[in-house]
């Protein structure tokens, strides 16, 4: 009996079966062609690293949006300011047209930009300030701008009205006319002259009083100045609960 090793046994199968060929059915190529035409799906899906990163980002955004006390992110920030501006612009305009409540505040602001200077040569006071020209245009009470250069003679002192805001000029109607100085000194003072003297601005205190009267309509103003021979000094302060009033000398007409 002949013997045969494993390698010989394997060779018998290999020689017969290695190059074996069989014709496949037609459906095989149809299936192959179909699978090749179908777009490849990403079987792996989204990598877990990206999922973790997306989750962290989502939590961060949610924490920003949901934690109370923090200002939420405004995604339409460009639209918001314009809306607010429109809302606030209309009432401000209306207030300016009415010119009642804001009148005093705007007036004080404008007053802060003015200066009262004394002209030594002309012996007169001159109200100056860079913002005067603008203020003249924008004053709510301004109805007419006096373009002339009227002068007012006050005890040998002349105020250049060109530099005085027109609202002052409006309330000093006398100032719009040239007054003969000799006539003033010779003619005795009348009641009308006394009223005029109350409205005339002879010192800084008068100017402040005039301004305060325009703003503060109470009987006791927030601050009042009184004139005397040495100049002007504070005669009263009214801060609501605190009221200080100096002893007043009765003003008598001359």
């Amino acid at each position, binding site marked *: *009996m*002949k*013997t*045969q*090793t*494993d390698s010989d*046994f*394997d060779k*018998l*199968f*290999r020689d*017969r*079966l*290695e*190059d*074996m*060929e*069989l*014709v*496949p*059915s037609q*459906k*095989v*190529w149809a*299936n*192959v*062609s179909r*699978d*090749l035409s179908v777009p*490849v799906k990403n079987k792996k899906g989204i990598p877990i690293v990206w999922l973790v990163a997306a989750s962290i980002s989502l939590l961060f955004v949610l924490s920003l949006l949901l934690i109370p006390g923090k200002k939420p992110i405004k995604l339409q920030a460009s639209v918001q300011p314009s809306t607010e501006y429109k809302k606030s612009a209309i009432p401000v305009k209306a207030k300016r047209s009415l010119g009642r409540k804001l009148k005093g505040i705007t007036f004080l602001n404008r007053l802060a930009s003015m200066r009262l200077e004394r002209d030594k040569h002309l012996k007169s006071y001159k109200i100056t300030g860079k913002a005067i020209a603008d203020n003249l245009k924008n004053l709510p009470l301004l109805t007419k701008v006096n373009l002339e250069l009227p002068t007012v003679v006050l005890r040998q002192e002349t105020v250049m009205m060109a530099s005085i805001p027109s609202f002052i000029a409006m309330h000093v109607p006398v100032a719009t006319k040239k007054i003969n100085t000799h006539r003033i000194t010779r003619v005795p003072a009348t009641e009308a002259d006394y009223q005029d003297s109350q409205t005339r601005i002879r010192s800084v205190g008068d100017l402040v009083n005039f301004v305060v009267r325009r703003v503060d309509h109470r009987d006791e103003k927030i601050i009042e100045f009184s004139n005397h021979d040495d100049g002007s000094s504070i005669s009263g302060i009214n801060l609501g609960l605190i009221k200080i009033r100096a002893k007043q000398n009765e003003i008598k007409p001359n």
Partner: protein
Amino acid sequence: MKTSRQVLILDLLDGCRQEDPHTQELLYKLMASKMLGVCMRYARDQFQAEDMLHLGFVKVFKKVKDFREEGSFEGWIRRVIVNTAIEVYRKEQKHLNIVDLADVYDAPQQMFNMDDLEVKDLLAMIQELSAGYRLVFNMYAIEGYSHKEIAEQLGISEGASKSQLSRARTILRGKLAKTEGVNYENTNR
């Protein structure tokens, strides 16, 4: 004929890399019958073999860009088909039937005269083997894999590969002996 076919297959390589459908179909028609022969040895029947062929060629066309031309294109295709057969086996059977190494030996066996056997008879014998035996016998005896390579491919030990091969040979020898006995009886009648 064989050389001319190899040249033609290599000419189709560029077209397949460019995913040209006409070239892909030409390559399939040239290689399908031969690759189906490979699949038949790994499959239990022709239906399963054609499924392997289908999956194998889809892989060939999708991975042809990775072919580095270090070996023959036909050899690369054959290897892709065998790997596909292995994957099919893995899906069907999670575990191989492990045989004790004590049963594995390479002793001289009875001499068989296979001249009278037809290819289809030998193929039928292999297909009758269990999947694990069939796989290891094909890889080692016909494809020429080493036990180390088989172990790496199948995720088993080299000893397990040897035992599978030994069992497969024993079964095949029994089938051959039975067939020769029938043939011997038929010849003497």
